[in-house]
């Protein structure tokens, strides 16, 4: 791809929008829709081939257990079809320059999908024809996708992409496409825009748990992350049922290890990730529904059930039979037949070291900041806090304003949080951006 990106053609015309929203997760969609409904012209830029962020990959949401994709898919569609929103997917912000209050110049790189967006019907015939298989990002590697692929069944937009770095140039996809949509001569474009305000909603990254070597992630096949477990439980799941990846067996004795890569100075992340306790309890409850005979154990340091209905949700899991063991996991070893042996300090029983065998272990991985966007700001500085999250201008009284007037932030780019708090911040950021624009335009 790097070789092809060098061929990028810069557009001459500068497009104009009221607000640039960066990141098309639930925060970016919500802020864009609010502003668009108020009559502002919004440019929404998403770096992946589909909007939706992490939410549309989840199974259900805590504590209500509502279906995540039933909530997010209509919002994704509304975002893509709103007449006041221009959506650019598979695109990256290259440069942001502040020219004055209410005036930013932006350069965006639109990467080529090698598929004509106006022609592709999302039929998937190119994917069927392509011979190359690579791990599917949207399923966190649990299965493969092709080099020519539809990102996801419910992707918005549902348009194929060619992964040129894994293409063997066989031409099968192009021959198979019934509408002639595949065009390898498509070039990257640099789009220029002038915008009045910016909302950053680029979310979070998952903690790379392979950094914690004693947890054996990627070394033992039956140790997965909680994001992979959410995929296994989702209606759009990668397998035909909840099965363990090592051999396809239905797991009957599943363990969760909380705070994997959170509240842990040894791996450089001393913060609590705020959602891991609750998403693990959610997954435990869903597993009891999917596998009624399975034993579920949660190893925890302390359960942080601080939100509305969270404590009740925790008590409900206990009542359903989920075992909660207060203990720090010290070591993980391979067991027999693909099982996993967990050594833990049993805090409530005198701190003795004990071992237990599970047939599937889920690491409840933490959330990390995603501060890449900082580099795009050329003549103004976007300040981060000591941990790398975007720093609000004033944590107490202006939580969604950043160090740059006219630039706002919402969702997990500001720190780990759940979906309702993300939505609340997105609505606040949209209202603040609208107020800022009205103010500068009144004086301009």
């Amino acid at each position, binding site marked *: 791809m790097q*070789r*092809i990106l060098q061929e990028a053609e810069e557009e001459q015309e500068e497009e104009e929008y009221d607000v640039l929203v960066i990141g098309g997760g639930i925060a970016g969609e919500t802020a864009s829709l609010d502003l668009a409904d108020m009559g502002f012209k919004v440019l929404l830029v998403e770096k992946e081939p589909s909007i939706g962020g992490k939410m549309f990959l989840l199974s259900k949401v805590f504590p209500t257990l509502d279906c995540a994709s039933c909530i997010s898919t209509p919002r994704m569609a509304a975002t893509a079809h709103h007449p006041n929103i221009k959506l650019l997917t598979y695109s990256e912000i290259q440069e942001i320059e502040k020219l004055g209050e209410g005036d930013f110049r932006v350069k965006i790189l639109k990467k080529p999908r090698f598929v004509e967006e106006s022609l592709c019907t999302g039929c998937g015939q190119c*994917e*069927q024809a392509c*011979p*190359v*298989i690579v791990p599917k990002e949207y399923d966190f590697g*649990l*299965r*493969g*996708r*092709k080099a020519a692929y539809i990102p996801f069944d419910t992707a918005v937009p549902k348009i194929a992409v060619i992964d040129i770095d*894994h*293409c*063997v*140039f*066989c*031409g099968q*996809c*192009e*021959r198979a496409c019934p509408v002639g949509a*595949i*065009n*390898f*001569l498509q070039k990257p474009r640099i789009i220029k825009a002038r915008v009045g305000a910016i909302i950053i909603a680029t979310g979070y990254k998952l903690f790379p748990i392979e950094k914690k070597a004693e947890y054996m992630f990627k070394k033992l*096949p039956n140790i997965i992350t909680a994001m992979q477990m959410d995929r296994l439980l989702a209606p759009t799941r*990668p*397998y*035909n*049922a909840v*099965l363990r*990846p*090592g*051999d*396809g*067996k*239905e*797991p*009957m004795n599943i363990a969760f290890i909380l705070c994997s890569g959170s509240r842990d100075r040894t791996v450089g992340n001393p913060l609590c990730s705020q959602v891991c306790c609750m998403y693990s309890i959610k997954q435990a409850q869903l597993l009891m529904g999917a596998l009624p005979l399975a034993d579920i154990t949660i190893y925890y340091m302390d359960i942080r059930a601080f939100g509305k209905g969270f404590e009740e949700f925790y008590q409900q899991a206990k009542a359903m039979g989920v075992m909660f063991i207060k203990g720090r996991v010290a070591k993980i070893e391979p067991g027999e037949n*693909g099982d996993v042996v967990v050594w833990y300090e049993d805090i409530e029983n005198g701190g003795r070291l004990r071992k237990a065998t599970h047939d599937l272990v889920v690491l409840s991985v933490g959330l990390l900041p995603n501060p890449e966007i900082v580099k795009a700001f050329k003549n103004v500085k976007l300040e981060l806090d000591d941990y790398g999250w975007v720093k609000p201008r004033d944590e107490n009284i202006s939580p969604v304003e950043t160090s740059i007037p006219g630039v706002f932030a919402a969702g997990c780019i500001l720190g780990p949080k759940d979906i309702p708090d993300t939505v609340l911040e997105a609505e606040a950021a949209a209202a603040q951006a609208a107020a800022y624009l009205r103010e500068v335009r009144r004086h301009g």
Partner: protein
Amino acid sequence: MSRRPVRRKLTVHMLRDKLGLKPSKELTDMLKRQTEIKVKITRALRKQPKTVPEIAEETGLDTYTVFWYLMTMFRHGQVEEAGKTDEGFFKYKLRER
């Protein structure tokens, strides 16, 4: 007189020729191995439905690899479920097209 259809040059080949692109040896080796794995799994399933350990036993592949490819083939509509054993393993069979 029969006229041969005019074959237009594919854009993929135009791009490849224009930029002198070539798949790496690593990629072509990977593709070869993938094709072998898929052929082995398909052959193993031709006679009767099987579980992942049974396919692994017959093909000499490890169970993780068999399951990963099987689920990729499952999602691409090439295999389907065919019952379950008491040990909690699904059986899979080739999907008739």
